[in-house]
């Protein structure tokens, strides 16, 4: 059973940061400390129907965030951007779905229970102290929950990061701590590697535990990384990055309660992910630019991502680009899916961007996505004389397509026009392939009257044709109407009305309320 003991902060989602914010706001004004408290809230109401036609979920969602920032904790002299700088930033989030029934989170309600689901999870998105330009610009650091963004993707951890910037156009960075993992206090699974269904099941009683063996217990994940990047010069930049994350604690390996084979659990330190990435961009203002990147998965021993993009500047208003993207699905090292025959995708594309005027810009292009599939019969690579023959060797199953490169294609067109307080946008796309087609376009616009009254709208028609499930094809019309009021700098209230019309949902409505406040001292 899930015990009644919940995380202290989960019970009091905003109290911790609220207290911190209050302390900062009422702190003695000894120097020019800048404090900022922000709150963003969104409430939305809509229904979801199962794609198989019957289930309907009522979503009654409330998202609330509370952020606190304090800048210039060292009271640097104004006007000197080279002075050491210390700041603090934190943000707490509460994301509730009041439409879910209590049974959904009650393990005793086997009929309705969804392991890992929480009706009102609270997570600390980030909370760190950051120092910049210490030791005459050589040293920077961050302490706390923070993000790292580079060729290895978006990642979050609790720990410390230090960077050494040298005058020799190179910067060395090292960090270590614990990866942010779902199921741990005030954490979200968003930043851990995919392929493992993981969460807090420490409070399940044994009978429940046996029912959901795929739902793995969450444990701390020690991690560290280093990066070397160029700095200073603006026409070229590269970053080489390495990161290793460990899984710890027990993991269920027997998927069936009646399993005869051991071990039922595997326990111990083991690799979760180990990857090396490199990304670079270079530019020649009169000619063009180039970007490229690659990710090598050390655990799998293969390149899992690579990309390259070339831009050619044709005059001052036209940019032509050729893009290439390579991607192979890869997962946490605990996941069985790393060893499934997942094949790479290759994307090639051409696009153009035209700055027609200072107000109007249009971009568009086309692309082809080449999937790979296996074309030859199974061959494990070694003689397995004593191995029980796989049913795959059944003659009827050994048929493979001769074309191992099924192809999808498509294109997109987007435009933006802006003048004063008015913006207009267009976004259209068409994608066509073996799985089906998807074509459509949206137009959107927003105007701010008298610097405070916001009127906006969006309308679009999209058509999709699902080749695998023909009954899911439809043409859908949608419009959104928005009114808002900017009652203070960076503070606004907004209401949105959304209406979808198509043969799958009939008519569906969605109402959203937004409220954002920023208070500064």
């Amino acid at each position: 059973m899930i015990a009644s003991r919940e995380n202290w902060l989960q019970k009091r989602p905003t109290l911790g940061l609220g207290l911190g914010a209050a302390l900062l706001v009422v702190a003695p004004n000894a120097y020019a400390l800048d404090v900022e408290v922000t709150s963003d809230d969104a409430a939305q109401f809509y229904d979801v129907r199962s794609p198989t036609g019957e289930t309907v979920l009522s979503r009654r969602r409330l998202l609330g965030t509370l952020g606190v920032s304090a800048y210039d904790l060292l009271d640097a002299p104004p006007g000197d951007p080279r002075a050491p700088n210390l700041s603090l930033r934190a943000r707490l989030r509460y994301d509730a779905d009041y439409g879910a029934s209590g049974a959904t989170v009650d393990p005793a309600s086997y009929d309705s229970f969804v392991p890992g689901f929480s009706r009102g999870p609270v997570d600390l998105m980030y909370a760190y102290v950051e120092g910049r330009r210490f030791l005459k610009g050589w040293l920077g650091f961050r302490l706390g929950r923070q993000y790292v963004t580079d060729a290895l993707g978006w990642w979050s951890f609790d720990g410390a990061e230090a960077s050494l910037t040298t005058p020799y156009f190179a910067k060395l960075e090292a960090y270590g701590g614990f990866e942010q993992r779902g199921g741990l206090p005030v954490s979200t699974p968003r930043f851990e590697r995919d392929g493992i269904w993981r969460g807090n099941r420490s409070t399940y009683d044994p009978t429940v535990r046996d029912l959901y063996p795929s739902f793995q217990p969450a444990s701390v994940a020690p991690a560290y990384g280093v990066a070397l990047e160029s700095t200073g010069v603006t026409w070229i930049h590269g970053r080489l990055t390495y990161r290793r994350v460990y899984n710890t604690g027990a993991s269920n390996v027997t998927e069936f309660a009646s399993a005869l084979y051991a071990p039922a659990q595997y326990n111990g330190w083991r690799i979760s992910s180990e990857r090396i990435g490199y990304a670079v961009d270079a530019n020649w203002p009169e000619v063009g630019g180039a970007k490229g990147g690659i990710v090598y998965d050390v655990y799998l021993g293969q390149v899992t991502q690579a990309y390259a993009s070339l831009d050619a500047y044709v005059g001052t208003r036209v940019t032509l680009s050729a893009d290439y993207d390579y991607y192979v699905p890869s997962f946490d090292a605990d996941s069985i899916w790393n060893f499934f025959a997942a094949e790479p995708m290759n994307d090639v594309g051409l696009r153009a961007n035209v700055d027609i005027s200072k107000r109007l810009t249009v971009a568009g292009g086309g692309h082809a996505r080449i999937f790979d599939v296996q074309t030859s019969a199974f061959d494990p690579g070694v003689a397995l004389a004593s191995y029980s023959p796989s049913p795959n060797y059944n003659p009827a199953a050994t048929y493979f397509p001769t074309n191992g490169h099924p192809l999808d294609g498509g294109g997109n067109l987007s435009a933006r026009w802006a003048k004063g307080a008015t913006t207009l946008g267009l976004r259209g796309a068409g994608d066509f392939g073996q799985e089906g087609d998807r074509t459509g376009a949206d137009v959107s616009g927003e105007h701010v009257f008298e610097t405070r009254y916001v009127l906006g709208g969006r309308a679009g028609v999209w058509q999709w044709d699902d080749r695998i499930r023909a009954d899911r094809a439809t043409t859908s019309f949608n419009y959104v109407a928005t009114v808002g009021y900017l009652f203070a700098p960076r503070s606004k209230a907004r209401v949105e009305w959304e209406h979808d019309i198509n043969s799958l949902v009939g008519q569906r409505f969605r109402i959203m309320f937004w409220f954002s406040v920023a208070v500064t001292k």
Partner: protein
Amino acid sequence: MTRIFTLLILASAALLIASGAFAEAPAGVHGLAPMPEDRKVPLKWLPPGAFDPDSGPSDGIFPAQRITLRFNHARHVNKTVGATCKTCHAAAYRSTSAADHLVPDGTVCDACHSTDHTDAAHVKPGDDENGQCVYCHLGYKQGDGNAVSELQLPRANLLFSHKAHGGRNIGCPQCHGAVEALELATRDQLPRMRGCFHCHQMPDPASRGDAHSACDTCHLRGDRTREGSEGPTTNDTVLRGTVIRTMFASGTLSPPRWLHNAEHTPDFISRHKWVAADDSAFCANCHKEDFCTDCHDGRVRPRTIHPNDYLNMHAIEARMATQRCSSCHREQSFCLECHMRVGVAEASPPSARDSGRFHPPKSIWSDPPRKPGNHAYEAERNLGACVSCHTERDCVVCHGARGVGGGFDPHKNGFVGGCATQFRRNPRPCFVCHEARGSDTMLAKCR
């Protein structure tokens, strides 16, 4: 006779004017535009970093000006008059702030134009034509009480010290181009950021005199100001926060295409990943984490990415991999959890499951021969789509080795050749399908 004489005089005058004999005449002929006859300023005379054709400096950094003076730099900066930049703009050599007013007072003109601007309320014109108010002040009218139109030169939204640059022996043309060759100097002679980068290429710890490339070396920090929302007015004390200020009444700052290839085009949303992957610190100069998390860890659907009835459209887009779902969503939590609740996942609770079948009929989906539409083909093609709905258990039922599951081998060809490394570093996934202590020869090959 008198009329004929008058006509002859007028005709002669017209011919003389047409022939250019009065090109040096005062009114309306020069000093009203950078080049005579409003010709285009040659690229070589524009500030370094300008392009051809040039679109001028940034609106956000250098707000529009209202120049109500007529002035010809070329006529002043020459051997005859002998003026230099410093003659009129001496204050620039002492200026440490972009808020300083560096256009000379009228008193600077008095010595040559025989005017007297000592008392701005009672300016005395000179005797000559070039000493008259209307000679320089556009739109001046006698009888308006000595009033002239206001010259509006808003401060640049920058941190800038002319004194520091002058101290480094950086001459005026290195930022402003060949102003001495022009008649009227307009906003177009204000610096281009690309020109700044001719020098500003040094990292933070470089010596103090070096030109650093960090954005906040020149750009104002703080996404708000103490003074109000309209931006700084008289000083540079608005240096709060960790991002630079990008919104100004005169315009919004956005990277040019030649800076990290990061022009924010209408399709930038699908291309920004390459900029962020290479240099996320560059993005962080303008964007706080919140800006990124709104989508990448978002809980409210961004319509610019997921349009229309995306709840119903997303399945086909996920299978086509039009967008990489895992850029923002973790399949085994975000996707799986919702799929379980809505009853589409195999691990869904019984009350959520319904009678419908999500996948195509068994004859296509799982029976041989494999072909488009068969689950093996679909998994090879885009495994992420499977992972967004299925748990390990769903796959192990058939793909577990004999004795654990159905024995259908899901591995790639040649898999055994490289599996020992993975087994040594994390054997956990192997034990899910293979008997750890039994006679599984496949597992033995990987030990």
